[in-house]
């Protein structure tokens, strides 16, 4: 018997399909958590605090006066909605506000000396140290000083992006863990169910074929006017919703159908069962963390092998 007989391939299609559905749920949950926790905005707030926090405006002033002045500035205040921190801040806006605070909102044109003296006039603190270090390399040129300030902000934003990415990855793992445990998405169990139940397996494979025909969850680009190859239009194919059939199948395959701690005879589950569960959950968590686009591609490829021909094309981009 070869490894790649029909049952094995159908089980593989089934497990990949389940991974895809769970990954889609995980992505949706992650986006929801990001929106609820205002993740991007909060990371930006933290990054700006690192730059501007701990700086009084006058001797004997409060330590965060400069930061408060930054947020009170009309250019920043106009970006806040219901006291929510903006998710993005243009470097030029940052530079404009810093320049304005340092020069005391001087009307008319601003010179390098105004900028430098504004920095020197600040009491000891993070901003004073940074601004004076930046102007030292500016050859007494305001434009260069502002470019250096912009670079200072961009460096901080690179760090913010790193934090954001790591936080998103962490949430992906947390959500994958919760989803796996709540749904009892045990890979080994799923494989057993699909292997032992030909009716269920057939239903899953049929639904996987339907999913593979749907557009990939992506943004696609099209040059609608063939005479203008510089002006593309984009189409979003979110694909982040599960159909009722897919939800029903997940309900049949996943879930806590047995008592968590005891078997039907009232005995505690053996260590072997717990080990198997642990491995099964771990495999599922790892699989979900690979993301929906990855499993979508794998599903398409394996369906092409299994059914000896390419699945119907998604609509032309």
């Amino acid at each position, binding site marked *: 018997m070869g490894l790649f007989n029909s049952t094995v391939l159908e089980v593989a299609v089934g497990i990949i399909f389940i991974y895809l559905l769970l990954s889609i749920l995980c992505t949706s949950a992650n986006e929801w958590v990001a929106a609820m926790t205002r993740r991007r905005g909060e990371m930006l707030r933290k990054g700006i605090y690192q730059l501007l926090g701990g700086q009084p405006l006058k001797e004997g002033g409060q330590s965060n006066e400069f930061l408060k002045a930054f947020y009170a500035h009309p250019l920043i205040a106009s970006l806040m909605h219901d006291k929510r921190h903006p998710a993005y801040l243009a470097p030029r806006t940052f530079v404009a506000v810093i320049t304005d605070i340092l020069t005391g909102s001087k009307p008319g044109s601003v010179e390098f000396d105004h900028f430098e003296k504004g920095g020197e006039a600040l009491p000891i603190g993070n901003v004073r140290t940074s601004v004076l270090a930046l102007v030292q390399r500016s050859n007494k040129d305001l434009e260069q000083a502002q470019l250096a300030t912009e670079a200072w902000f961009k460096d901080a934003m690179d760090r913010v992006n790193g934090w954001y990415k790591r936080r998103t990855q962490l949430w992906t793992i947390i959500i994958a863990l919760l989803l796996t445990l709540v749904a009892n998405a045990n890979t080994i169990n799923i*494989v057993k169910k699909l292997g032992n139940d030909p009716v269920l397996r057939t239903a899953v494979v049929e639904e996987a074929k339907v999913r593979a025909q749907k557009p990939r969850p992506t943004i696609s680009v099209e040059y609608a006017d063939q005479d203008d190859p510089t002006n593309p239009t984009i189409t979003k194919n979110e694909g982040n919703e599960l159909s009722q059939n897919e939800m029903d199948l997940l309900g049949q395959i996943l879930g806590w159908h047995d008592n968590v701690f005891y078997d039907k005879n009232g005995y505690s589950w053996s260590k072997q069962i717990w080990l198997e569960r642990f491995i099964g959950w771990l495999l599922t968590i790892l699989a979900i963390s690979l*993301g929906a686009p990855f499993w979508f591609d794998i599903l398409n490829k394996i369906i092409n092998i299994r059914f000896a021909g390419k699945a119907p094309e998604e609509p032309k981009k």
Partner: protein
Amino acid sequence: MFKRFQIIFMVIVLVATPLSVRADITVSLTKGFVQKNKDRATISTTFNVDHAHKKPNKIGTGSEDGDIHIAGRDSVVFLPMVAEILNGKRENDTFKFLMGLTEGQEVSLTGVWRLWFEHPGSEDQIQKKNSVPIPDNTNPDHIFEFHPITKFGNFDCRDSFLPVADGGKEFRGYSADKAFADYEKRPGTITKTTNGIMITSNQAKYNYVEFDMRLTGKPKEVDDGYIVLANVFNAGSSDEEEPLTEQPRRMIFVKGSPPGDKIATMSKGDSLHVLGIPRVNLNEVFAIANGMSGHDEYAFGGLPYEIIIVALLED
């Protein structure tokens, strides 16, 4: 029991393999750079020549492409990079000038910009002023290239955009079906950040490709070249054959080069037999990044790409 073991083994392999083999590299670009160059063929810069080939590559197959490799740093792009002169043997005067330069010497350079994950190495590459290390050899880890160079010092190299040949030998590139099958499926993730755009992919193959292109629109003139959408076919294919790509792809021509002069006279439906090299399509990348709202990262079916046409080939 054995069958169950087979299935579990297969699932473990299925999950473990991608975890172990994914070696994605990210290049981080400023939004301004992408916006400025997305519809340009070339970039002009001042280039520090750190290492250069002592002779052009041989002409044969695969990496024997007749190019001259130069590794260095520049004053515009700020990424690890190499610059390559096409048809090294033909560009004798340029080569002599190159050999006369001292290590680290500055020279003005214009070349076709090319972002491609052919030699990405293992470290992410971030576009940042004064951050590029001095390369150790003629082929450091890089994602950015000037390839081909169109002007080196005072030497105009656009006449190098010809079939790569020496005596009886001619370099032809990979076949279109093989190369485009790979280009169409290159993995790619676009991440929009506050200040820039990150492109993530893994190591690419099939540097040069030979193919027939059939124009699906008229060429659009841009500052330094022409851009045209075209369907792609195997060299010598008949009119009835299906294109090799899902949709027409952008073809980039340099103004003043032999392919550029030719495309300027062509119109929709015309065909060419060409040699090309792929690069990331920053026009699409920019559009995708601009289309993101609420998503900071998006993985999709393929790395957006376009083809730089470096030579017209005989049928």
